[in-house]
């Protein structure tokens, strides 16, 4: 069986001012393990070393390109055992496989720093190798203090920096039980949520679950970890733009300039390709824009009231837009052939959502007919499905009007590009306290937001859009009707 080996060599000063070189090698059980290049790289580093001390650290090796930490499956050798070069010392479990790690030096296994069953980051010391018996005590002392004195990488060292706090219980300490997590506690978290929590180092017991029966969902963990792209329940979903400046597609279609040296080319994902195609198509539509300032104090107050019932800002805006569209059917129409109006029988509000480097527009169907609570529920489901990539085509391409909100980023106004097949798209900016003078000359501070609608001028004219916006602003400013 073919086997490859690699070593990690580095020079690391420790508290006792010794320079310690360490090595670890592995011989993977599987043939053709692509580790030859590790070998080269680390060997080169090794050449630059000057070995001054005879105590060497055995480091957690990188067994695969994706490995960030490894678990000690078992120590083949015990403390005090004599090791000879090339012997397997420890079995390490990576994300891919279990592998024997060999020593590159003769010596005595002086101390085990990371006991069986524990994990350590790649590059962290897991054991100490002494050359003579006299050095064992010294090595043990070093092992015991390993937690506090994490060595800073020397300038010459190219090996992965030791983690600031390597999990280094004293060598003599018994290995604690590896999975203490499952005590009797009340928090219920789904398997995926648990995995995410571990990954993002979120304390599940501090997360409030929003799933069925109050369980903690992956979304809750992401929210707690501050991952922006996927927040289903927050007032305004993270939305990016079908709102790139109009110039962008032109730039893209311009004769390509040679790439700068060192730049990387990343091909579009499927979703990104679809966005690109849709954006280019919009160039064939003569569009225009109309902006409108709207006072939102009443809406904000309503939102505070209904928020505990699970109503989201997205649902409020979608509902308001749908109600306004019901009175202005032409804004909900589309121009399919350049010769006619197509009046849509339903008011389906698409809402732009940014997900993982892409953009999708889940559709709230019949938004004028559903009440706020149903709409919010529906929206939650859609976002979850979108994240799971389980949206059915009619759940993202049946929109008749699109809403895009960048307010939560502090954007005060922007304009959006019309999606194909729709008559209009509304870009919503942030609601901000603004000084307003009323008709009697009194100044007051009110929350104001700017909305900007892009429309297809073949079917929607300026006056149509203005009238629609006026209706919309009345609904927002007197939002009681939204709850009916």
């Amino acid at each position, binding site marked *: *069986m073919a086997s490859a080996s690699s070593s990690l060599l580095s020079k690391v000063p420790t508290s006792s001012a010794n320079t310690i070189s360490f090595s670890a090698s592995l011989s993977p*059980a*599987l*043939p*053709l*393990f692509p580790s030859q290049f590790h070998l080269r790289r680390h060997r080169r580093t090794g050449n630059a070393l000057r070995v001054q001390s005879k105590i060497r650290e055995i480091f957690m090796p990188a067994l695969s390109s994706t490995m960030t930490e490894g678990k000690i499956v078992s120590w083949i050798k015990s403390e005090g055992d004599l090791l000879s070069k090339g012997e397997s010392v420890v079995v390490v479990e990576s*994300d*891919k*496989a*279990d592998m024997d790690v060999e020593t590159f030096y003769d010596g005595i296994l002086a101390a085990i720093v990371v006991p069986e069953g524990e994990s350590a980051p790649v590059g962290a010391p897991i054991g100490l190798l002494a050359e003579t018996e006299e050095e064992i005590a010294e090595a043990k002392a070093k092992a015991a203090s390993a937690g506090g004195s994490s060595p800073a990488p020397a300038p010459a060292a190219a090996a992965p920096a030791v983690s600031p706090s390597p999990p280094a219980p004293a060598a003599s300490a018994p290995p604690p039980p590896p999975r203490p997590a*499952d*005590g*009797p506690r009340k928090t*219920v978290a*789904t*398997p*995926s949520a*648990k*995995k995410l929590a571990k990954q993002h180092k979120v304390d599940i017991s501090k997360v409030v679950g929003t*799933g*069925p*029966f109050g*369980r903690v969902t992956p979304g809750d963990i992401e929210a707690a970890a501050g991952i922006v792209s996927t927040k289903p329940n927050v007032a305004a979903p993270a939305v990016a733009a079908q709102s790139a400046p109009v110039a962008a597609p032109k730039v893209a279609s311009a004769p390509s300039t040679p790439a700068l040296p060192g730049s990387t080319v990343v*091909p579009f*994902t*499927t*979703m990104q*390709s*679809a966005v690109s195609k849709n954006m280019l198509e919009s160039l064939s539509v003569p569009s225009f824009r109309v902006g409108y300032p709207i006072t939102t104090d009443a809406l904000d107050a309503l939102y505070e009231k209904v928020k505990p019932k699970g109503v989201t800002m997205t649902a409020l805006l979608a509902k308001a837009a749908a109600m306004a569209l019901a009175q202005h059917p032409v804004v909900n129409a589309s121009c399919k052939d350049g010769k006619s109006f197509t009046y849509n029988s339903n008011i389906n509000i698409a809402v732009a959502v940014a997900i993982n480097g892409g953009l*999708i527009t889940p559709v709230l169907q019949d938004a004028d007919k559903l009440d706020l609570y149903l709409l919010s529920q529906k929206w939650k489901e859609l976002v979850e499905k979108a994240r*799971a*990539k*389980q*949206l*059915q*085509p009619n759940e*993202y391409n049946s929109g008749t009007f699109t809403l895009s909100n960048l307010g939560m980023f502090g954007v005060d106004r922007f304009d959006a590009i019309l999606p194909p097949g729709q008559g209009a798209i509304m870009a919503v900016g942030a609601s901000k306290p603004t000084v307003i003078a009323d008709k009697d000359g009194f100044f007051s501070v009110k929350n104001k937001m700017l909305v900007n609608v892009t429309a297809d001028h073949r079917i929607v004219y300026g006056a149509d859009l203005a009238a629609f916006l006026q209706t919309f602003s009345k609904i927002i400013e007197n939002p009681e009707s939204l709850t009916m």
Partner: protein
Amino acid sequence: MQASLSLSVSNPAAIPRSSHGFESSIPFPSKPVNLRFCGLRREALGFSSASTYPLSTSRSSRSVARSNKVSASLGSANGSSSAPKSFDYDLIIIGAGVGGHGAALHAVEKGLKTAIVEGDVVGGTCVNRGCVPSKALLAVSGRMRELQNEHHLKALGLQVSAAGYDRQGVADHANNLAMKIRGNLTNSMKALGVDILTGFGAVLGPQKVKVGKDTVVTAKDIIIATGSVPFVPKGIEVDGKTVITSDHALKLEFVPDWIAIVGSGYIGLEFSDVYTALGSEVTFVEALDQLMPGFDPEIGKLAQRVLINPRKIDYHTGVFATKITPAKDGKPVTIELIDAKTKEPKETLEVDAALIATGRAPFTNGLGLENINVATQRGFIPVDERMRVIDSNGDLVPHLFCIGDANGKMMLAHAASAQGISVVEQLTGRDHVLNHLSIPAACFTHPEISMVGLTEPQAREKAELEGFEVAVAKTSFKANTKALAENEGEGLAKLIYRPDNGEILGVHIFGLHAADLIHEASNAIALGTRIQDLKLAVHAHPTLSEVLDELFKSAKVSL
């Protein structure tokens, strides 16, 4: 024969693989009870060469040979009826599952007048509620997995927009497949002239079978092939909606957000593959200390790395589910766990659904076994290595055989079929003992797991007892051109063998199409082919079969 005995000795560790103490509490030297998977036999396994024997003479010589052994049980058979003089059939098979079907087809080929009795639907568990519909679901889950794996698709240069599925459409696919295979099975038997008798069959006395309420049929020989049903430990309330067995799960009536699977054997593992591909999160509940206890440890570990850890699956090991309550009154399904060793209550899980995959129990009630003085052991019908039924005095019951899940030797559809064929071989004059170590098994996850023969610990134990040396060879799918072309390099093939004579003791494969690859090894074991000969066999390039080619070539036989 020696081999098959040693397997049952070395295997008891695999018995309590489900989450319940029930199985481990009663020692019984049988194969793991909840191993069950399927392969539908298309043709006889290749014993047809014996068909040239003159039937009459061989059969009489057979009965002479056997008459020494079987005697005592006849008299005690309920006293009532003595054996009939002439028979309606040469062979009656009770149960038209895959085992019965295999036996019937082979019996007809051998010239026996054959009837098969079925009280439910032709095809049995495998075709209707087991391996066949589950393969349909797994075919869907495999594709979903591929389409959802953007990284993988991108590496192939493919672009696919969001994949979705229609639950009813998937369920229909599974149901249609079961119907189609059931039809094929029925037609194949009808076409060959097997009489299909409808009604529950029971043994009335020696060579006498009751079908339904009052039809009595006589036959020279009887094969019991009544199969098994899902085993549900006590304390678990199955409502068929939120607490289900594989019978319900295969109908795919809903896809829960979160499902607990009790038992991490083949059935549980396959369903975890289906459910996670369809978007569910899964929690395994396993009584033993590690998942997938029936597998070769190395394969199990690798499989866990690929099939469990990166997916939306967590697990509780070393625990029994003592009480499972279905969802009702707006409450979720609750599962009470206790520590398997200390019996201390551990925690209560709240999930949307629970699938009970703790194994299968033999379906032998109401078979009239008391009429012939046969006592079941935990429901299984005791048989010898020739599938001849053993009565409560330890004597063989003449003219009565039991194959498949009902005898518990190896709960696999194709094992049942092979046992049936073996019985028919014996009935038609050729002594035959099935080598269970040559029967392959497969788990159809993505990627698949397959195996034949002994696991490494079993082989080492046997080697210790019998004093020979064991060696292990391994090859990786990473080194296989075809696997790399498919961008599916994850996988391992492992060969356990005797370096002194080149005998294959076991082969275990985890990787792309493992279930199809295993047969080269299982055939070699069945035919006694040695590694030194296999090394010279040629494999088409580039194919996945070269994984095995390389495996055999990497073995070091000292001859």
